[in-house]
């Protein structure tokens, strides 16, 4: 009877654990990111990350040994020195020798722990002699990467979470089983393998944190301040991280994707990017036609605005609707430009200074067309604002 019950229990447990491990979210481990049922740090792709992993094992083993010894004593005492087994209380309550011993011994253990940690801190903090310097700027809620020094100098990337993923999240991620859910970005940060990459962090609005566990880096990005960290990836591959300092409502939706490539691939990528940049550099004297600028506007909207304002421009929750907004309806396009350049409502609508003149003109033209039902391309009106926009639309 008892046996029977036990068997039933065991099979129920087995069933539950199989269900839990296979049901609903059948995703694979993500190399360079988290794994299912992962118990320890992500495998390190840099010396520093491996060092951190080693230190963690080192500490974990020492702490476990101390834990087992100390609580071995306690549970032995609980077992043997009980009233119910007739143990009579002793009367000692002091021993200077013992007390000195258990002050001094932990002190020595702590010093032993500090030695390898000190070495690691010094190594982690040495950002000198970098091969490539990249500035990572935290925005609410995306990352900007500017290649400042080294191969690829001048390249600038804005890296945003794939909007599909953001929508899945809003829809409760029903039936989603994507390995890089919430980790997929439009433009990853591309760096060469085996090169010392120095990351300079700063932020545009609030504090963010640039963090990639498998590369062993985590550095707050603080507005008005510049901090730095570094890594030297020892293998090619994709490495994923996320913003690690609370930065407002979309905090969970600004991942970091570092793509480490071989030296040749990196050179090729740099060449392509530089060509693209040259092409993207809008000729300031170019006169845009309305269909062209609207198309451009749709792209800008999809990349920057849609996450909050929604594809239909209706917004939601605290996010104001563009559709019917006084700012958009305003007969001078200047009002909307002002908001785009400076932000509004304490930056819950952030400033978009980082967009190019053409992009700003394009997105405004789009709104005028779609929401006000007027062909009112933003062009010269922009010039009256704080930043004269160099974009002309006929």
């Amino acid at each position, binding site marked *: 009877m008892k046996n029977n019950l036990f068997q039933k229990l065991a099979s129920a447990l087995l069933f539950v654990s199989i269900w839990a491990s296979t049901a609903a979210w059948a*995703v694979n481990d993500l190399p360079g990111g988290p794994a299912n049922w992962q118990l320890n740090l992500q495998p390190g792709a840099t010396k520093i990350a491996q060092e951190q992993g080693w230190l963690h094992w080192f500490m974990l083993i020492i*702490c476990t040994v101390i834990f087992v010894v100390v609580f071995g004593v306690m549970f032995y005492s609980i077992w043997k020195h009980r009233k119910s087994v007739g*143990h009579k209380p002793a009367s000692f*309550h002091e021993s200077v020798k013992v007390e000195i011993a258990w002050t001094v011994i932990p002190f020595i253990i702590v010093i032993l722990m500090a030695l390898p940690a000190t070495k690691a801190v010094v190594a982690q903090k040495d950002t000198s002699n970098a091969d490539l310097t990249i500035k990572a700027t935290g925005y609410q809620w995306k990352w900007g990467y500017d290649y400042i020094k080294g191969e690829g100098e001048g390249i600038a990337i804005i890296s945003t979470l794939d909007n599909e993923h953001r929508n899945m999240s809003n829809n409760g991620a029903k039936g989603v089983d994507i390995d890089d859910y919430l980790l997929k970005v439009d433009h990853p940060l591309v760096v060469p393998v085996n090169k010392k990459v120095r990351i300079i962090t700063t932020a545009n609005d609030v504090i963010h944190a640039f963090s990639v566990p498998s590369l062993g880096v985590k550095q707050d990005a603080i507005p008005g301040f510049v901090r730095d960290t570094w890594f030297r990836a020892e293998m090619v591959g994709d490495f994923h991280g996320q913003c690690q300092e609370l930065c407002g409502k979309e905090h969970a939706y600004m991942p970091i994707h570092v793509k480490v490539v071989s030296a040749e691939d990196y050179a090729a990528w740099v060449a392509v990017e530089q060509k693209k940049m040259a092409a993207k550099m809008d000729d300031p004297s170019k006169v845009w036609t309305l269909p062209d600028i609207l198309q451009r506007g749709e792209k800008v909207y999809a990349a920057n605005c849609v996450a909050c304002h929604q594809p239909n421009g209706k917004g939601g929750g605290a996010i104001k609707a563009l559709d019917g907004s006084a700012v958009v309806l305003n007969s001078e396009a200047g009002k909307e430009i002002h908001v785009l350049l400076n932000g509004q409502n304490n930056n819950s609508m952030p400033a978009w200074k980082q967009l190019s003149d053409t992009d700003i003109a394009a997105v405004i033209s789009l709104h005028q067309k779609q929401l006000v039902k007027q062909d009112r391309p933003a062009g010269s009106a922009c010039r009256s604002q704080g930043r004269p926009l160099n974009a002309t639309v006929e």
Partner: protein
Amino acid sequence: MSAVLDPHGNVHGHDDHHGAPHGWQRWVFATNHKDIGTLYLLFAFTMLIIGGVLALLIRAELFQPGLQLVNPELFNQLTTMHGLIMVFGAIMPAFVGFANWMIPLQIGAADMAFARMNNFSFWLMIPAAVILSTSFFQPGGAPAAGWTLYAPLTLQMGPSMDSGIFALHLLGASSIMGSINIIVTILNMRAPGMTLMKMPMFVWTWLITAYLLIAVMPVLAGAITMTLTDRHFGTTFFNPAGGGDPVMYQHIFWFFGHPEVYIMILPAFGIISHIIPAFARKKLFGYASMVYATSSIAILSFIVWAHHMYATGMPVTGQLFFMYATMLIAVPTGVKVFNWIATMWKGSMTFETPMLFAVGFIFVFTMGGFTGLILSLAPIDTQVQDTYYVVAHFHYVLVAGSLYAMFAGFYFWCPKWTGVMYNETRGKIHFWWTLIAFNVTFFPMHFLGLAGMPRRYADYPMQFTDFNMIASVGAFLFGFAQVYFFFFIVLPAMLGHGEKAAAKPWEAAEGLEWEVPSPAPFHTFETPPKLDATATRVIG
């Protein structure tokens, strides 16, 4: 003994002589330390439940990936308010409640030194709690910048941020008044013969805690006042747009924040130091070293704050200094744990609920201590800062630490407070239920943090799903355990159901609180008692 309690020979007669307070006036105008202690404890439990409901909403949302119940704005409000309410509304006031009830009884004083200020410091908390709890209904919702209220995110918050700052000021003022009261009571009102080094450990730990509170609450007040003037009066202390320094906010906040965590654990050490000897039937091992260890922890707590800020990026020497100082704290904390175990060693132990919670405290709190030591190493902290590892760590020390100690203290002193014994079986159910549910909730968070799951995330990559599910199930079990605790243990005891308790219900408990009848009469020790040489018994 009644002669000691009451020179007129009749406890009740004396009450009447003062005009025993009745009805609501007894509580609103309360000046009696026992009544005010009860008010504090009930208030803290109410806030624990409110904070707990917020926690369960968080865990429900995190049960699976994707947003199901709340949007990200509300999620941030929930984590922020959970933290603020638990720290300032639940844990701190609960310990003040214990202090009010037990300190006068333990030192043989008639009451707290400043009875009316005592009343004021309690009733100040009510508007503060109302403001905090209702901030969800303000335009823009509750503050959502995390309980640490980091600038410049606080500068983006809606009007509830201002009321939150006001509420924290009120709570801070209340804490400071409570601390002054406790310090003056302890230093001036001990019964003759109770020298400092004969004081019960709970009194010692509270004396040190009260000094910590007076030292750091004004620092918090400064930080949030600067936030307020940055928001409204054009200053730019923390606003980089005007040349301010957001990192300075963190330095100021954590200069308050780190001693604050010891404020929330030192009284717990005191409670445990009474319970272990009582149930081991053996004197506390190393009383003097306990006092010195507590003082060392308090002093060290002022020079370790920046270990919360390794990721802000400080010079290598700064990082090393704060790492070494933090690791040092392991030494006095270790001394305390060793002393408790040495007290148990060769004792004659029984395991009633207070002892179960005390042993559970030592065992689980120590795990939180070890993760604290691991976190103190800056290179490891680079991996786990701002991840669920930190969440696991501070819940191990704050829930399995402070809260367990308070449960232990409740079961230990409940007979003195209510005059009846709690139901032992129910107490044991509460203990095992709480212990298991707690570990189911928070142990998997270590794994999540090591794997890189950031804290304060409303949604997470799919690989984190399994452990999050386990944690959410555990959280609900833990929550229900506390509902059970209130309805099946606290309430019956408050209503006087249960076996009548003797003046000293525990065979080997020591201290003046056991020298007065159970329940403790409204007035105790109105004339200073004469104490024996150990200052633990009244001799006439």
